[in-house]
Structure formats: C-alpha cells, structure tokens
C-alpha cells in the first residue's frame, strides 16, 4: 500500500525537477547579453542554407503548403519527416559523444494544444508558416509580407497577454522537459529506433497514395 502511495510522489518529484531544470535553462538563456559577431554571422549563414533548401523543396509555394493541409500534396510531410529522421539520429549520436547539448522545450499540455490549434488555423489562412513565409518573400511572393506583418503584430499581442497566460494557462499540465523516452520508460536508443520505424512506415504509406 505504501509503495502505491509512494509512486505518485516520486513522479511529482521528477516533474518538479524537470520544471526546475527548464526554468534554470530559460534563466541562463536570458542572462546571455547578446550573441557574438561570429554567432550572428553563423546564424545568417545557416539561414541562407535553410531558406535555399526550403525553396528547393517547394515548401515556399502557396499551392504546395495548401496542398498539404488539403491532403492532396504531401511534400511538406516528406520534408519534415525526413529531416526529423536524419536530425534525430545525428543529434542523439552527437549528444551521446558529448559533442552537443539537447535543447528541449518544456512540455505544457494545455499551452501546447491551444497554441498548436491556434497556429494551425493561422497556418491555413496564411499557408506560409514562420520559416517558409520568409523563404516565400525571397521567392517573390508579395503576400508573404502581410503574413510577416501579422506575425509581428501577433507576437506583440501575445506579449500583452503573457503575464496572464503564464499564470493561468501555462501551469496546466506543466511537465518540464518531458521526452517520449520518459513516457514509455524505455532506453533512449530503443525509443529513437521505434520513432524512426513509425515515421518510416508513415512515409511508406504516403508513397502509396495517388497524390504528390
């Protein structure tokens, strides 16, 4: 009986630790005064490559992005899923070799769901998302400038509500830096293998669909 009672406590403790770690990480990020000139240049360089790749993948095009949401064109899914497979392997290998740190965002069930749904509605209205919209401007899609103006206005609107949201919405279902490996309580490499297999199966099914 006492064991059963102990268990939720242990889980709570773990959550609290996770939350603390997330908070500490956020603090240390804000304490960084500003990025060095080298990092600014690297950011620009990585951005050029990212934008180049996004345009070449066609995901700066209105009809390809809308096609994904209308389920008639799966280019977006193919790009995202293959990036996730390669990145998942690469980043975790480098992490295991102590070359990089992970940068996991805190899990907040309610904020993740609400924010994701709101984002989705906006995604369909604009068709360009924050990254692909910037590539769309480069591609010459003038309507993407309206989306950027909206993004700036929306960011300020969020800041106006940020005090309230951080008190009321964000604590609901706050779980800290929770990963799938914590949830299924299996070794990380096994979870990675499982995730990659599932993504692979999804892509294989998509390939059989009579759409792009």
């Amino acid at each position, binding site marked *: 009986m006492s064991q059963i009672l102990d268990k939720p406590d242990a889980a709570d403790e773990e959550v609290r630790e996770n939350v603390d770690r997330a908070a500490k990480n956020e603090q240390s990020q804000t304490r960084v005064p*500003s990025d060095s000139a080298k990092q*600014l240049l*690297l*950011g*620009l360089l990585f*951005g050029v490559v*990212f*934008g180049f*790749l*996004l*345009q*070449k*993948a*066609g995901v*700066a*095009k209105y009809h*390809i992005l809308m096609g994904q*949401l209308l389920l008639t*064109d799966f280019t977006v899914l193919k*790009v*995202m899923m*293959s990036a*996730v*497979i*390669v990145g*998942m392997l*690469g980043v975790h290998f480098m992490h295991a070799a102590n070359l990089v740190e992970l*940068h*996991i*965002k805190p899990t907040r069930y309610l904020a993740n*769901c609400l924010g*994701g749904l*709101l*984002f*989705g509605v*906006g*995604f*369909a209205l604009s068709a360009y*998302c*924050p990254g692909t919209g*910037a*590539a769309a*401007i*480069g*591609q*010459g*899609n003038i*309507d993407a400038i309206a989306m*950027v103006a*909206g*993004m*700036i206005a929306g*960011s300020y609107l*969020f*800041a106006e509500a940020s*005090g309230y*949201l951080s008190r009321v919405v964000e604590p609901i279902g706050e779980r800290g830096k*929770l990963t799938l490996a914590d949830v299924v309580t299996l070794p990380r490499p096994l979870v990675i293998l499982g*995730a990659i297999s599932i993504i692979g199966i999804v892509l294989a099914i998509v390939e059989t669909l009579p759409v*792009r």
Partner: protein
Amino acid sequence: MKRLFSTAILAIASFPTIALAQEEAITTEAYSGPAWSPYLVGALIGILSMFTFYFSKHPLGASTAYARIAGFIGQGVAPKHTNQLKYFADNKPKIGWELMLVVGVVVGGFLAAFSGGEFTGRVVPELWQQRFGEGTASTLLRIVAAFSGGVLMAFGARLAGGCTSGHGISGTMQLSVGSWITAGCMFIGGIATAMLMFAF
C-alpha cells in the same frame, strides 16, 4: 427545333466536362512541384540541424525572430509599456542568432528561386485566384487572410513555445512530448481550416 435539340445534346454532353474542369481546377498538383526531391532536402535539413546544434548551440526555429522585431518596435513606440510586459522582460529584444537566421532564410529563398527560374513576383498566388477570383476584392481578402494568419500563428507559436520548425522539426527530433503534441495540433487545426476554406 432540330437546332434546339442539338444544343440540348451539346449541353448535356458538355455538362460532365464542365464539372470535371471545375474538379481539376482545385487540384493543387496542377501547379509546379518541388525542384528537388523532398526526401533529399529533408535529409539536408536534418544535417543542417546537426550543424546548428554543434556550432551555435541552437535548434532551428523561426518564430522567435518575429517576437524580437515586435519587441524592437514596441520599445520604439512605447518603451515603458513594452519593457514591463512579461514576455519582453523575460526575452529582451535583441538582434540575435534567431533574427539573423530568418534574414538568411529570405536571402536563401531568393537565391534558390532565382537560380531555379522560380522567382514569382506575384501579389496573390495562382491557386488563391482560382478559388477566390482575380479581382481587387480577392486580392484584399488574400492580404487580410495572410495578415490574420500571421497574427494567429505568432500568438499560437508563442503560447506553444515554437512553430513548425522549432517544435515540428527541432523539437520532435529530440523526442520532446510537448513538440509532438504541438505539431499534431498544428496539423489538426490547419487541415480543418483549410478544408473549410476550400469546401463549397
């Protein structure tokens, strides 16, 4: 009479083709596809992620850059009010890595489109015109939709903690539970809204 008859026959015969033409008109595949294989580009974006983790200690993510610009504008217009907002107190507006990344994306998008002969220079996308018409009203509607879409995306991304790249690619690859939930909700909201926009 004979003429009327043949007109009727013609009308009946052409009815399915009109219906078919309308059906084809809404096919997104009628427009140009990706220049490169999506799998190749995806793999390269995965490798790019490894580079940003290693060299910049940053995952790829685009939405934060817009919040930085909003902070700058806010500090210019109403500095006192802007600085006391929780988000800007926690995340001081600065020209940082994230903002430079998005500036780079614009440049990269241009280089790719220019090199591939895909530069558009269009105010309104072709598919939008096909669905909502070509007049001024349709153009205005597109601008309003793109702007309000931007507002909702920025608000949603800040609430959720990231966008299609920050959560959808960088977060999911790190097995973050919140990122998988957010990415799923983004597509649920997006698919539902898009279906409504293109339904009759």
